[in-house]
C-alpha cells in the first residue's frame, strides 16, 4: 500500500470519527435521556429525618391576611414602576415614600421623614407617609399568631410576620389582643417569612409593644431590610437564619429556602410542626418556594409522627393577583396525592386557587369573610384553625 493511500485512509478515518463523535453524542441524548432507563439511574431520596421533637397542637389565629386591598392598584403601581423585578424599596410605597412618584422611592429618603417617630408615634409616622406615597390606603399586611401546646401542656406563642400598614396592623393587633401579649412579653419570637412589603414593613408595630422580642430573618435580607430592623427601634436578639433547618422548640422548626422572589426579594423561611400522633403541619407566610417543595423538603429532612402530612396553613403563593398560569393547575391536580388532611389557606393563595381546591374536593377549611377579608373560600381575618387536639 502506498503512503498516499495510507494517508487518505487515515484522513477518512478521522473524518468519520469526527462525524461519529458528534452524531454519537446526540444519539445518546435523544435515545437515552428521557427514557425509563435514564430515570431508573436517579438515586432514591435519601431521607435524613432529623428528629425535632413533637408538640401536642398548634392553633393559628389569622391577625391579617389582606396584605393589600386592591389588586389593580398594587399591580398597577408595580407595572408603572417597570415590572416585577423592580426593587421594592424604590416603588414609592409607604413607609418608604418620598413624594417623587413611581419608581423614584428611596429607603433613605422615605425613612428620613419618619425615623425619629419610630416606634413610639406610628400614627404620626403613617400620616406623614400617606402624603408621600402611592396608593396610601392600599397597604394592609400579613401576620398570624401561632399558639403551640407543648407535650407538657404549656403554651408557647409566636408571631409569623408583622404586616405592612402601621395603621391597619395596629388595629388588627388590638382586635386580636396581640398588643397586650407583646407588652406582657408572652410572645416568644417573631419570624419574618421574607422581606416583602406586606410581611415585613409593619415591623415598627411589633416594636411599639415589644422591641426586644427575639427576631428571625432569612440570610437573604438586603442591607435596606437589615437597616430597617435597626431603624424600627429593635433592641433585641436578631437571628439570621442561615441553616436549612433551625429547631425552635420541641416539635417546632424553622426551614429556610433560598428562592428568588419578585421585586428583588430573596429567600423565604417557613415553619414546620410535628403534631404528636397526627403528623406534620406546614405553616408559611407566602410560600414562594412552593407548597410541594416545602412538603418535599420536610419529607427528606424531618422526622414526624405517622410519617404523614397532616395540615397546611398560610399564604401558598399561587395566584396572589388573581392571575393564572398553567403550572398552577399542575399544583391543583397534584396536591391531592400528598394527602394533607386540613388545608387552611388565604392571602397570596388567591381566591381563584381556593375555589379550584374546593372544586377538586380538597379538605379546605372555610372562613367567615370578616374584617375586610373578601371570600369565605378561605380563612379570613380573625379566623382560627387548630391542628391537633
Amino acid at each position, binding site marked *: 500500500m502506498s503512503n498516499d493511500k495510507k494517508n487518505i485512509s487515515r484522513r*477518512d478515518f478521522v473524518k468519520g470519527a*469526527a*462525524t461519529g463523535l458528534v452524531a454519537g453524542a446526540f444519539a445518546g*441524548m435523544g435515545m437515552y435521556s428521557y427514557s425509563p432507563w435514564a430515570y431508573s439511574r436517579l438515586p432514591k431520596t435519601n431521607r435524613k429525618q432529623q428528629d425535632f421533637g413533637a408538640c401536642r397542637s398548634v392553633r393559628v389565629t389569622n391577625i391579617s391576611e389582606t396584605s393589600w386591598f386592591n389588586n389593580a392598584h398594587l399591580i398597577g403601581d408595580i407595572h408603572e414602576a*417597570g415590572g416585577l423585578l423592580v426593587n421594592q424599596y424604590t416603588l414609592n410605597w409607604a413607609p418608604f415614600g418620598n413624594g417623587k412618584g413611581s419608581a423614584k422611592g428611596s429607603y433613605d429618603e422615605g425613612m428620613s421623614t419618619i425615623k425619629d417617630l419610630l416606634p413610639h408615634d406610628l400614627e404620626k409616622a403613617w400620616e406623614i407617609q400617606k402624603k408621600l406615597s402611592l396608593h396610601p390606603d392600599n397597604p394592609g399586611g400579613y401576620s398570624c399568631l401561632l399558639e403551640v401546646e407543648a407535650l407538657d401542656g404549656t403554651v408557647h406563642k409566636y408571631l409569623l410576620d408583622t404586616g405592612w400598614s402601621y395603621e391597619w396592623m395596629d388595629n388588627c393587633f388590638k382586635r386580636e389582643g396581640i398588643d397586650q401579649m407583646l407588652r406582657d412579653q408572652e410572645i416568644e419570637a417573631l419570624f419574618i417569612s421574607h422581606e416583602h412589603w406586606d410581611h415585613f414593613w409593619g415591623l415598627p408595630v411589633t416594636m411599639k409593644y415589644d422591641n426586644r422580642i427575639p427576631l428571625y430573618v432569612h440570610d437573604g435580607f438586603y442591607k435596606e431590610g437589615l437597616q430597617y430592623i435597626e431603624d424600627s427601634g429593635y433592641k433585641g436578639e436578631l437571628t439570621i437564619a442561615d441553616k436549612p433547618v433551625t429547631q425552635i422548640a420541641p416539635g417546632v422548626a424553622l426551614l429556610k429556602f433560598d428562592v428568588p422572589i419578585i421585586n*428583588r426579594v430573596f429567600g423565604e423561611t417557613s415553619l414546620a410542626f410535628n403534631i404528636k400522633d397526627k403528623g406534620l403541619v406546614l405553616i408559611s407566610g407566602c410560600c414562594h418556594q412552593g407548597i410541594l417543595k416545602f412538603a418535599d423538603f420536610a419529607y427528606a429532612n424531618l422526622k414526624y409522627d405517622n410519617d404523614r402530612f397532616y395540615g397546611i396553613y398560610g399564604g401558598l403563593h399561587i395566584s396572589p393577583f388573581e392571575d*393564572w398560569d398553567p403550572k398552577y*393547575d399542575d399544583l391543583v391536580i397534584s396536591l391531592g396525592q400528598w394527602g394533607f388532611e386540613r388545608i387552611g389557606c388565604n392571602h397570596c393563595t388567591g381566591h381563584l386557587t381556593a375555589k379550584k381546591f374546593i372544586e377538586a374536593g380538597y379538605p379546605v377549611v372555610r372562613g367567615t369573610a370578616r374584617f375586610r377579608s373578601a371570600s369565605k373560600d378561605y380563612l379570613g381575618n380573625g379566623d382560627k384553625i387548630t391542628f391537633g387536639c
Partner: protein
Amino acid sequence: MDNSSVSYLESRKLVKRWNGPIPALVNSVLILAFFYATWWIFQDPRGLMRMYTPYVGYMVCRWLLILFIWVAYIFDFWPFKRSWLNKTHPLIKGSVLTLVSVAAMIILIKGFFVEILGNFGIAYFDPDRLMAMGITDFYSIEYAAEAIMMFAAIASWLSPSWVVACENAPWQKLGQPARGITIVLVTFFFSMIVYFLTMHSHMAILFYPWQKFTAICPPYWEDFANTVSGNFHIAWIMCCTVVVWLYETIWERYPFNLIKHDGLRRTASFFGIIGIAVALCFFLFYAQDLVWGETIRGTRRLMAPDWRWLHVGEMAIFWLVPTLFLSFYCNNWPTKFSRPVNVCIRTLLTAAMAVLVYVVYYKTSHLFLGTQKGFSHPQQFPMIPMIWLINIFLINVWFMDGWPGWKAVPRTEAELEEVREEVVASDVKWTPGIAKGLAIGLAVGALLYFAIINVLPWIGENITIIK
C-alpha cells in the same frame, strides 16, 4: 454567475480592516457597549423604558429577531436596491434597516396581532379586551404579549429553516418581493398551525374557567411532559431555533449537504434539525434532573417540570451566543482541517463556551442587567438578554457588514461558485476508512454522553454557581 444573481449576504465577502484579533476585539467592545446602553434604555428594570416586565420586552426581542430574519434572509433586503446596499455607509445602512425593522414590528404587533386578531379573532391578543373583562392591566398586557411573543418563537425556528434547510424551495427562483412574500406567508401559516397545536391550550388555561370548548384542556402533552404548561413546547421549539443556526453556521450544513438529491437533502435537513433539537431538548431536561434532582409536578421554581422545560430553551440559547460569535467574528474558527473535524471542534468548543456564558450570566446578571439573583425566578428569562445580544450581532453583521472591524467587498466569480457548491458538499465520500472512523466515533460520542451524565450529579453536589 454574478453578484446580482445571489442574495446580498452571499454576494459579499467580509474582509478584516486590521490584522489579527483586533477587528473581533473592537467589534466585541462596541457591541457590548451598545448592548448595555440599549439594554438600559429599553429593557433594564432600573432603566428608562423598562420594557422587561418581562413579557413586553421579551415580545419585542423576539419579533425584532424575526424581522431581521425576514429583511435579510427572506426578502433579501427588498425594497432596498443592491446598489444602495453596496454603496451606503454601514452606519447609515444599519440605522435605516434597523428602524425599518422596528417600524414593521410595531405595525405587525399593534396592527395585526392586537387590532385585527385581538378584536376579530382571539380576545387574548388584545390587552384592552382582557382588561374590559376584569383582568388587571398588568396581566392583560403580559398575557397578550406572551401570546404574541410565542408566535415569534415558533416563527424564529420555521422562517430560517425554510431558507437554510429547505433552500427556499419551491420558490427559490422567484424574484423579490414575490419570493419573500410567499415564504413569509407560508412560514406564517405553518407557525400558526404550530401555535394552535402547542400554545393555544396554554393560553386558554390562563383564563378561568378553562376554555374547554375552544381549546384542548387538559392538553394532550400533559402525561408525557408531566405538566399542562406549554413550556414543554418552548423547550423543543427553542432547541430547533438554536440547531437551525448551528447547522447553518458552525456545521456549514454538514452532514445533510452530502445528500445530492435536492428533495431528499431538504427534507432530511428540515426534519434532521427537528430530530437533533429534540435530542438536545431531552438531554438538557435530563441534565437538570441529574444536577438538581427529579422534578416534582405541581411545585414551583427549580423543582417544577414546567420551569425545567423552559430552562431547556434558556440553556439552548446560551449555546447560540458563542456559536454566532465564532461564526461572525472568528471566521468560524477552526477552518484548516477537513469539514467534519472543523465541525466537531467547533461543536465541542461552542458547547464549552456556552457553559461558561451560562455560569457567568447567573453569577453576574443580577448585578448589571437588573434581573433577580437565582436560576428560577418566574419573571426572569435569560432568553431576553441573550436574544437582545444576538439581535445586535445580526444588526452588525447583516446590516452593517461587520463595521468597523470588517468591510464588505464583492465576491469574485470563483468565490461565488464555491458558495453555490457548499449547498451540496463533495469533500466527504463514503470509504471503508470513513465507515471505520464513523463506527469508532459513534462509540466515543456515546461514551462522551455517558461520561457527561455521570459527572453531572457530582457537579450538582459540589459546585454552587449562585450563593
